[in-house]
């Protein structure tokens, strides 16, 4: 093989290696988290990023022809399909699980959540200010 072919092979295998690492991360996350709505986050990562990295590597191997175009089409289709299927699965879980409040908090009114978040961020800014004051005091 010539030098250019070696470079193509190396770049392609680098992309495929990235994809495999992402797939392993996905599997680790799926077995690590305790609840479906948490696991879904890990599972959706491989659907978009993992398969795009693997197929980009295969595109580089395949060269400039129609197969490359079709592989690109698969990636584009999955970018649209994967969020939709994750959303539908999350709706399935929320609609059918009767003990949902054991796993996560549910706010009936969005304004409650926003108020709580605003209070929390206000507390944090106060803490940060106090911390900086303490640090400045210790320095001086």
């Amino acid at each position: 093989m010539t030098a250019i072919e070696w470079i193509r092979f190396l770049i392609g295998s680098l992309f495929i290696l990235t994809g495999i690492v992402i797939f392993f991360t996905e599997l680790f996350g799926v077995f690590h988290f305790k609840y479906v709505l948490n696991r879904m986050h890990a599972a959706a990562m491989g659907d978009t990023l993992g398969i795009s990295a693997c197929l980009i590597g295969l595109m580089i191997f395949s060269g400039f022809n129609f197969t490359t175009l079709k592989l690109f089409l698969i990636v584009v289709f999955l970018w649209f399909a994967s969020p939709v299927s994750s959303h539908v699965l999350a709706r399935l879980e929320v609609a059918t699980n009767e003990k949902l409040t054991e796993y996560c908090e549910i706010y009936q009114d969005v304004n409650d959540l926003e108020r709580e978040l605003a209070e929390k961020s206000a507390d944090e800014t106060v803490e940060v200010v106090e911390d900086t004051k303490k640090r400045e005091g210790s320095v001086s």
Partner: protein
Amino acid sequence: MELYHTLYIALLALFSFLLLICLIRAVKGPQVADRLMAVNMMGTMVMVMISVLALLLNEGYLVDICLIYAMISFLAVVVLSKVYIGIYEERARQKNKEGGTSDDSH
């Protein structure tokens, strides 16, 4: 070429191993959503395997099959979850009806 051939065979073996781990999740998963999610993951990995196979055998039409596989696996997840939500609501309605009559009898 020999190098590409070896790489493709190794990729196929690795992805079949990952597929087996996904199957464990599908068998273990306590919720229905867990199992459907595992099936979705398996579909993604099979897509990569079909694309590798297309380059290994040098047959372009296998990539078309991969595209159709992607569409069908997406459709399967959406339809199955919609059907399951429908079944659950139907059962809940029946249970409510029975609960109301049994309360009257008591």
